């Protein structure tokens, strides 16, 4: 007789569980933000306005995607803004020295990949050092190199077509938004539908168990870091296209914004938890909040306070033990 046991792999669909997800809460916040913005300013709810606005905050969104991987791994990378600065500076200088623009762009992406690879290799080779510390020092080094190359100058005068990257439209939709959606889908598929993505989750939960079960953990970490570097360079491409010139001091503080977006998206800094969708929604929450409040002349500084408070409330809510609040104390 055949004695086969079939392990049911599919989870039962549970309505309650489905609705008590972080992403739904984010969607609710997203809707609240939009309603608030619409009621505060009559100019908010226009398609072209929102499309224009999306171009102002999407540059750092490209870095959110790989940062999700890194934080799920339980690591953190604070050198990303410096990688952006370095690759943009090298691109600008190379172009001004006569390299054709497509090659300069390729060079920028390569620089990003190399920087990410260096980060990844250091983290893997020195496992006793927290990723935060490794990237803290490479952060200083990468931006330092950018300063050595360009000092206080700017590199620019890029060709006409290059500004299309940051300012161009395909029909009514900004090119940048389309590029972001393409990248977001790719990264989302990589995280949720491939073995690679599942390994990343596994490593975030228990890296030793993963290594013993034959996952090449070091290789995965280096690949993720390299991807991070490449996306930091992609951010550089769009950012420089928008500002028109490359300077060593661009993108300062982006790393904190990016980490804040990822964490708001429900991805735990302990690793192993969270989904790509949450991070993507939170990009738009913060971006549109900024745009909407900017329309009614709320100063940027007040926005910092609001975003800080939202971030803290968002991470505090899951910590509150609902059972403790709802259950009555049992008399001893």
């Amino acid at each position: 007789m055949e004695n086969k046991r079939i392990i049911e792999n599919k989870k039962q669909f549970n309505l309650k569980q489905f609705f008590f997800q972080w992403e739904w809460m984010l969607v609710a916040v997203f809707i609240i933000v939009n309603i608030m913005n619409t009621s505060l300013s009559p100019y908010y709810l226009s398609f072209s306005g929102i499309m224009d606005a999306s171009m102002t905050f999407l540059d750092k969104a490209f870095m959110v995607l790989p940062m999700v991987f890194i934080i799920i791994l339980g690591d953190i990378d604070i050198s990303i803004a410096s990688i952006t600065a370095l690759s943009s500076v090298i691109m600008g200088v190379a172009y001004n020295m006569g390299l054709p623009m497509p090659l300069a762009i390729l060079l920028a992406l390569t620089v990003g990949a190399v920087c990410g690879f260096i980060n990844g290799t250091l983290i893997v080779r020195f496992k006793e050092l927290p990723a935060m510390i490794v990237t803290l020092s490479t952060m200083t080094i990468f931006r330092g190199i950018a300063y050595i190359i360009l000092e206080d100058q700017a590199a620019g005068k890029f060709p006409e077509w290059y500004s299309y990257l940051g300012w161009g439209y395909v029909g009514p939709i900004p090119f940048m938004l389309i590029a972001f959606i393409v990248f977001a889908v790719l990264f989302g598929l990589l995280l949720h539908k491939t073995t690679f993505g599942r390994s990343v989750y596994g490593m975030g939960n228990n890296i030793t168990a993963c290594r013993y079960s034959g996952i090449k953990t070091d290789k995965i970490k280096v690949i993720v870091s390299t991807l991070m570097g490449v996306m930091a360079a992609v951010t550089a491409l769009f950012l420089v296209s928008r500002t028109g010139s490359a300077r060593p001091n661009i993108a300062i503080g982006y790393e904190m914004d990016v980490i804040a977006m990822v964490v708001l998206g429900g991805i735990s800094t302990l690793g192993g938890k969270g989904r790509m969708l949450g991070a993507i929604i939170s990009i738009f929450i913060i971006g549109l909040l900024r745009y909407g409040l900017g329309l009614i002349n709320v100063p940027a500084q007040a926005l910092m306070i609001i975003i800080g408070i939202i971030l803290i409330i968002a991470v505090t809510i899951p910590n509150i033990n609902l059972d403790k609040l709802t259950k009555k104390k049992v008399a001893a």
Partner: protein
Amino acid sequence: MRNISKFREAGLLAFIFILCIFIQFKNPSFLSLENINDLLTNTAILSILAVGMMMVLLTAGIDLSIGSTLALSGMTAALVVSNNPELSPIVAILIGVAVGTVCGLIVGFLVSILGVFPIIASLGMMNVFRGLTFMISGGKWVSAHQMSDSFKAIATSSVLGINTLIFIAIIIYIVFYYFISYTRTGRQIYAVGSNVASAKISGINTKKTLLLVYTLMGTLSGLAGVLWVSKFASAQGDTATGYELNVIAACVLGGVSVAGGYGKVSGLLVGALLLGILNNALPLINVSPFWQNAIQGVIILAAILMNALVKRHATKENLMRRKI
């Protein structure tokens, strides 16, 4: 472990020594009394903050909000002083310290009571405090002519022949050296950082310890804020942006483990001093200011990698010995 830490500090000291000789050779004015005074004054604020950060790192936490706390308390003190020129500088310092303490208390509350991860709690509060700094100042600077002379004198006067900033830093080091190394609460910080669970089981109130650590960090940031504003005679909304990373770098250079439970005040002093020397000496030997960032980064990276390698070697030796 004791041997390694001694070796580390000796190594760093030797490095500082060689560095000093090299710089002195290049520019004889480096080891002049005047320049040393300058160097120490510039390092004082960094080293005050480093003490607080060390305690936070000892508990395996991190505080990214200190740059903003510093700015907020400095700005508050400066605004109060510019409105009441007759105010005694002691009161100004107390105001700054009070603001800083409240800021630290908030971060500590989030971390210890609500259980938010330190990096997230401090990241959020970093934004909040920075925003508040801009709000209370209305985006304007408080510049030198709006401050009373007695307030500016905090940083320029001297006590017992030493600059007040250095004097305050020395006092703080003595107090905290005693606190961290010889009091029960101080030792409990190490216990919480090494192993929270066992600390809790052995009866340490871990929540209280965490709260205390972040509050002290805030207090020291508040003090540093007033000193900063008095030293540079200007309070701006973006004062000390990103300074928290310098402070963390000083701690790491000084051998404080970011994973918690390991670090000493003496090591910290050496780390802060090395960063201070680098900042002070590179312009003296005509290194372009644009090179400073990269050089600093390379030295920090080299120091932490060396540290890791030395530790690895020591662990291996220990294991070998155990086999026999």
